[in-house]
């Protein structure tokens, strides 16, 4: 072939290929989208909710990163309060890196020297103790328990009228396998003397208030004749790891079945008392009406008609984790609805699932039993039969016969919420 011939072939070849491309593209009509010049790709949640009910499952804060933690929902930064996003509750044990965080005072530990840290046991005892972490691990028999840790104010943003405080959605809770020393063993080692009534607990967290003032230290107490003392542990591992600093390294109290206000983090002092603890954190806050379900009205509370007692055992609760409403469901598609349930009063014996807003109920399948204080997972198969809006609901029953109510409650601080949970899902055509 001559040189001229080659050139002509190349040009024609190119033109033909180009023509072929153009023809192909035109025929197939690829939908080229133009990037929007302005406006955000993702519409964020609002900054705040209210004065009505928070309609979202979780709090509406932005995601935030903290040491040892996955991005979690931020409520506050100083002191730190972080909520666990919904999907982490698919597993019965909540990953440490996703576990919610709640502190009262801004002086949260950033660094702890274990060569110097001691757990002091003092007060009305035969012998005061100063135990290192090594002492706790070696001198005492290790015990383990799976227990749900839930903030007393979990779901506070459901209350009407809204209550000032930490505006939790449903994620101020978590389940972990805690290993440590039985509190009873520690107290026995010190030798509790006759006449002792309570044990008071204090951690390393400190606030900016004057020493011995309310805003300087956070103190909680348990009665020594409370049966929970026999199940309380001083935990040094959480899900098989050292406690994250934000969840109470080096050790924290684990009080199974009770709200986490008692679960003192970075525990450093156990004081045995001969008088009931009258400190602010026991008597002036963390109190609930002494009524069924802890329910009262703003009017009754304001006019002093209701007797307030310290918050204690966690009422029965259950949650739907998926579906979470972020996707429509094609009609007749078999869906596995999944969730969790727990009660501080005893074993969860039944979980019921409704696909029609509580009109009819069916029994859900229960997951593995990790003990009476653990999350219990549940699941149910749902095959939607018609298109449109559906409201799923779940309710649990425990061994004492406690069932979740389907009415809202109110109390001055926004504690004890355990109303039946619902999830709206849109079902659409499958073609």
């Amino acid at each position, binding site marked *: 072939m001559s040189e001229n011939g080659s050139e002509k*072939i190349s040009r024609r*070849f190119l033109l*033909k*290929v180009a023509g*072929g*491309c153009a023809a*192909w593209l035109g*025929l*197939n*009509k690829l*939908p*080229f*989208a133009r*990037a*929007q010049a*302005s*406006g*955000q*790709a*993702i519409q964020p949640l*609002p*900054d*705040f*909710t*209210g*004065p009505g009910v*928070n309609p979202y499952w979780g709090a509406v804060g*932005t*995601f*935030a*990163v*903290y*040491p*040892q933690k996955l*991005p979690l929902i931020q*409520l*506050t*930064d*100083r*002191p730190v309060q972080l909520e666990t996003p919904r999907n982490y509750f698919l597993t019965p044990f909540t990953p440490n890196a996703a576990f919610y965080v709640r502190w009262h005072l801004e002086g*949260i530990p*950033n660094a*702890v*020297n274990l060569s*110097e840290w001691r757990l002091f046991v003092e007060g009305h005892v035969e012998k005061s103790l100063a135990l290192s972490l090594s002492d706790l691990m070696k001198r005492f028999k290790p015990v383990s328990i799976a227990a749900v840790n839930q903030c007393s104010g979990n779901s506070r943003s459901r209350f009407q009228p*809204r209550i*000032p405080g*930490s*505006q939790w959605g449903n994620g101020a809770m978590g389940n972990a396998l805690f290993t440590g020393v039985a509190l009873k063993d520690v107290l026995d080692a010190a030798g509790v003397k006759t006449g002792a009534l309570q044990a008071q607990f204090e951690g390393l967290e400190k*606030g*900016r*208030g*004057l020493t011995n*003032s*309310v*805003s300087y230290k956070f103190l909680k107490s348990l009665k020594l004749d409370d049966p929970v003392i026999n199940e309380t542990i001083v935990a040094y591992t959480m899900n098989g790891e050292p406690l994250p*600093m934000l969840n109470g*390294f080096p050790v924290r109290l684990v009080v199974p079945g009770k709200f986490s206000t008692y679960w003192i983090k970075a525990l450093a002092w156990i004081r045995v008392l001969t008088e009931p603890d009258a400190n*602010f954190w026991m008597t*002036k806050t963390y109190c609930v009406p002494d009524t069924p379900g802890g329910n009262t009205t703003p009017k009754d509370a304001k006019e002093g008609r209701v007797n307030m007692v310290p918050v204690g055992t966690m009422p029965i609760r259950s949650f739907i984790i998926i579906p979470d409403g972020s996707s429509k469901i094609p009609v007749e598609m078999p869906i596995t609805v999944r969730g969790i349930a727990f009660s501080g009063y005893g074993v969860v014996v039944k979980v019921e699932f409704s696909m029609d807003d509580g009109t009819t109920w069916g029994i859900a399948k229960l997951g593995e039993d990790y003990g009476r204080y653990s999350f219990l997972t549940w699941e149910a198969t749902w095959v939607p039969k018609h298109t449109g809006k559906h409201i799923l609901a779940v309710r649990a029953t425990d061994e004492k016969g406690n069932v979740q109510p389907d009415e809202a409650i109110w109390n001055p601080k926004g504690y004890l919420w355990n109303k039946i949970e619902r999830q709206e899902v849109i079902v659409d055509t499958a073609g």
Partner: protein
Amino acid sequence: MEKALYILIGLLITTSHKPLLAKTNLYGLVRSGQYAKGNLRTMHQPETAKQSVDGVYIVGTYPLYTPKLPPGEGREIMQGYCNMCHSVTYITMQPPLPSATWATEVYKMIDTYGALIPEDEVEQIIAYLQSHYTTETRKETKLGMKGRQDIAEDESP
């Protein structure tokens, strides 16, 4: 012969990943390739704090993510006093509250939690909270120039 081969190869390469004819549309595809500007927010993965065998268990500093508050009379006084014990994120986290509730909350800080605030400044603090955080006055934050709540829209980055 060769040129026919070249043309054939060219066409095959161009069309090999897609059927050729218009009849084979992407049925049902309503939208694709749609992008829009996001907010390049600084959510860096945290570096692990340096560890050594010295007995000290360390996680490093806790970050502050405090939103900027709307300008107004009393803002600086309030921030000065409130920041002693906690960040003002405690304020922005609240739902819109009745005016009277804000007054109660401020007095709770003084009477219960020991905040040392002179009386005339208490009034200014309450007034600021009531002009921005009640059911009547609370507004969504306008995200600043880079989509960040720590820069108000009317202030430069």
